[in-house]
């Protein structure tokens, strides 16, 4: 009898192990524990046996029954944990589906990055109109009467005003700086603000020159302010753009609206300052002009230069974006060409 049970147990465990999926396992379960199972057959045949045998065989049979139940549960768990939701094979190397999304212009993106940085330093964002008068574009900024930038070879004058002067001579703004006086006239001092925007110059275009380009200018006006604090603005810009600290140097530069004025160079990121083709072998790249606001400009803004001083930084975003991404032709920015714009999602 016990021999028979041993055989039932062995065969039963084998069939549990061999069940491949839930359906097969269900059949096995019926075979092993149902009314017609081998185990039931054995128990049925017990009638003729003595009590002792009945007892020991009965106990053994129950034991086997429990074992089957346990093993079936184990096998069930095993099958479920290996079960896939897929009912057919999958090629995992196929590409994922596209995410539909547009993009801001790479220059807008850079502009917003800088806005965020300056906002954290308490700067406001200001914008002046695209068309300005000679008074704000040049006179207020201490440009000499016969400064070459005032000529139509450089500046886009509006037809019908080109022979007039000052307030009445209008142009597409050739730089942002004129906006600084507008802001100061409106809001007074102390002030700290950035004023990004497009500017326009009558230039012949090539890979490095455009008729319209994007500048980003920042100005602080305050009392008891030293030019060395201005350097912090410069580092803010460059750290934000390049994501790490960039070495900069300030050197002498000249602009009508600053005194003193600076050219700000950054260490060439291509060669790390050792000198390469990109930096013309001197290790430094000119990135932006800046300087202390000229007393005459403060006067234009109705501020007393004895009391107030300030610091400008002006950065050409086109050039910076070109450096950020390695773009080699400035004309892409105004091309509207999606093959270009889609790269900056």
């Amino acid at each position, binding site marked *: 009898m016990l021999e028979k049970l041993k055989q039932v147990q062995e065969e039963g465990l084998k069939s549990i192990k061999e069940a491949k999926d839930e359906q097969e396992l269900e059949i096995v379960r019926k075979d092993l524990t149902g009314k017609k199972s081998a185990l039931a057959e054995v128990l049925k045949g017990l009638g003729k046996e003595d009590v002792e045998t009945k007892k020991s065989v009965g106990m053994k049979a129950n034991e086997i029954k429990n074992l089957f139940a346990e093993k079936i549960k184990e096998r069930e768990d095993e099958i479920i944990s290996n079960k896939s939701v897929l009912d057919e094979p999958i090629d995992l190397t196929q590409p994922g589906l596209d995410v539909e999304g*547009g993009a801001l212009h790479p220059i807008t993106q850079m502009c917003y990055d800088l806005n965020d940085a300056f906002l954290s330093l308490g700067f406001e964002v200001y914008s002046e109109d695209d068309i300005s008068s000679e008074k704000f574009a040049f006179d207020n900024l201490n440009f000499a009467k016969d400064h070459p930038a005032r000529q139509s070879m450089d500046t886009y004058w509006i*037809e*019908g005003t080109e022979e007039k002067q000052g307030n009445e001579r209008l142009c597409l703004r050739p730089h942002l700086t004129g906006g600084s006086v507008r802001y100061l006239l409106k809001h007074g001092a102390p002030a700290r603000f950035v004023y990004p925007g497009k500017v326009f110059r009558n230039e012949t275009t090539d890979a490095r020159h455009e008729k319209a380009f994007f500048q980003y200018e920042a100005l602080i006006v305050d009392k008891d302010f*030293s030019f060395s*604090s201005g350097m*912090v603005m410069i*580092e803010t810009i460059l750290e934000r753009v390049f994501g790490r600290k960039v070495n900069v140097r300030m050197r*002498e530069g000249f602009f009508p609206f600053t005194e003193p004025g600076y050219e700000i160079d950054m260490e060439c990121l291509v060669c790390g300052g050792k000198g390469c083709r990109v930096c013309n072998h001197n290790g430094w790249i000119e990135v932006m002009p800046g300087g202390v606001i000229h007393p005459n400009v403060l006067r234009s803004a109705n501020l007393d230069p004895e009391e107030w001083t300030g610091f400008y930084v002006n950065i050409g975003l086109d050039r910076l974006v070109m450096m950020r991404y390695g773009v080699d032709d400035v004309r892409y920015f105004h091309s509207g*060409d999606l093959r270009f714009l889609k790269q900056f999602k």
Partner: protein
Amino acid sequence: MKVSLNWIKKYVDIPESITPKQIAYDVTVRTVEVEDVIDTKEKYHDIVVGQIKEIKAHPNADLLKICIVDIGEEKPVQIVCGGSNLYEGELVVVSKPGAEVIWHGEGEPVKIKETKMRGESSYGMICGAVEVFLDKLFPPKEETEIVDLKGINCKPGENIADALGITDIVLDIDNKSLTNRPDLWGHFGMAREIAAIYDLKLKPLKEVKPDKNLPKYQVEIKEPEKCPRYTATEVTGLCEKESPLWMKVLLINVGLRPISAIVDITNYVMLAVGRPGHAFDRTHVEGEKIIVRNAKKGEKLLLLDDNEIDLTEDDLVIADTKEPIGLAGIRGGKKDSILPETTGVVFEIANFTAPTIRRTDKRFDEKTDSAIRYEKNLDTETVDLGISLTLELVKEIFPESKVVAYTDIYSIKTERAKIEVSQKFLDTRLGKVLEQKTIEKVLKNLGYDVEYKDRVYHVTAPVWRSTGDVSIKDDVMGDIARLLSYESFEKKPLPVKFDHAVKQNDVLLERRLKEYLAYRCGFNEIFTYPWMDDKYIKAAGLNIERPIKLATPPAPELSTLRTSLVPSMLEVISKNLRYYSDFKLFEVAQVFENKEYHPSTKEETLPLHKKYLTGSITGKDAKKIFFEAKGVIERMASYTHMESLTFKQVEKPSWADPNAYLNIMHGSTVVGSLSLLSAKAMLEAGIKRTNVAIFELNTDLFVPYPSRTNEFKHLPQFPLVEKDLSIIVEENTKWEEVESAIYKMVKELEFIEEYRGNQIPQGEKSITLRVKIGNDDSTMTSEQIDNKMNAIMKTLNKKCNAELREE
């Protein structure tokens, strides 16, 4: 401008320990930008002095000779040469193997190798001037001529650059960085700056003054305001002659070509002390009198380059008693030029004011060295340096010459700027307290006079900086800061202020609009120019009554400034269609309207500026893209936190399809439009086989919310029941009517689709809508649901004449 360090060293001794690279760096940081440091010897490597010991005939070539040449090595070498002026004992220029020469003076440099010429070995090459960059110093008279170093103190084997004194370091300075420094347009000024940077001693210049008892040369100044000072020095006993080697070499090293001793002297003086001069042949000055006057109407001047120019009354000219002979400070006339037979000249060293020069010089594309300097506003005092150096050089080069007459008409003198600078001002603005000693040293090195009294520096600027460059205390502060180098000042963090956090709703709204379109709606932002192309103005059907135009537009068809962003948008769409079929674009920019607006004072009148947002969706299915665009605008207000926008048909935009346009409203104000692009506009803009939905909005009329306005609603406690309903209505029934008929009866109402087809009778259409219904206080029973749906259908039937569509 090129600056020779050899030349600088005539005025200041620079210690060996300061390398040229260091000088370039320090000058760049403190004074002017050095763009390049040029080692003039570099291109002369392996090019040496040789002496021809013996000349033999070449066995295989009539025109070639075999030369045995001493090049300073153990044994003389054999070189084959075809030069026409070879002789034994001649000192020549030899390019050894490894040297790089310009073959016959044309093309890129070629490396010399030891070779055989017609069977005879040749160790290098005996060179002509054009082959080894010496043509300026030894202008060849014929092509086959080689350089003959006769008369030059040199020995075989010596590097040719060393032998001729060419070896030098030249700093190439960016002229733009020199615009405000008239004093740096000569080597002496640059030497003074370098001396100041390193605190070195500047050697004084030799002073030579014309004899006081000399007769006066006749000069008349009619325009003293334009010509504050004029000196004329008449010299005789001159002749056609070359300048000495040292002078020629210096001129060549800084980029000039020596011409003749007389002309070279004026150039040398200009490059040394920054004073442009001019030499007139004395016999060409009619009446032996110089008159500085405005040109007369109708007068003409023939220039050296044979160009005749018409003069205006604005032009200042140098004239003799008969006619103009030169354009003051700019260019000489043909008549006054120095010729080989010239034996006497009148040297002019003068002062012409910058505006005078700039006005007249505008007519020329290229500026002369003289005009470049006068334009920067030279002072009147350093004229003396020019006279002194001219006299010194004339005496040195033409020992037999004689100064026979001299005049100095000095009407207006440049006054040195006097400025007071307080210690407190410097401490604050420099952000660092400097010792009095330091400040005085820096300023004195730059030529200032300084007196310190009661914590105030009373400074007198040097005369050569007093023509505008230095006039206020900020200039003095700038000089101190730059000379100590900006790098030496510690960077001070910005003081933080806590008055108020910056919050600018209009600025934020613009950003939210752009980010909404780009990131939520899949639009790409474009930039276009502020002017429009006539072709696309026409395509967009714009009729601009009083256009604002550019006086000098980039091209004739690009003269009109934009009143709408649509024309440029059409242009960009048509260009992108070459590569893409479905895309969405937008631009935010200002447009202009010819109305008056005063941003500052009444006197300043600008055209009206409006900030527009224009977007487009390009794709084949016109209805689909139209409603896609409509969805973008419907959701715009809530996503960007501004007051809501609605639609109403008011006026058709010129570019719109006659059947598919809507105006966009804020309250009762029209803020823009949405439409399909008309077939006509697409045809004229070259937009083919597709459709465009286009919207344009005036964002100035948007009203941002001061903060977010989302409102919390309690979640429904009892489940809502969702039911779809297809109804049949007449073709002209609008969704708006369906919606307003039943929206109050349901919790939610949604448009699903519109359908026309076989099963739908002609002149009618089917609309499928989805409703959600429910009770506020219990779950709906099926009976309640049926009743509600019947009621809805009944209302639709009554108000919209709708029938249930049988499946």
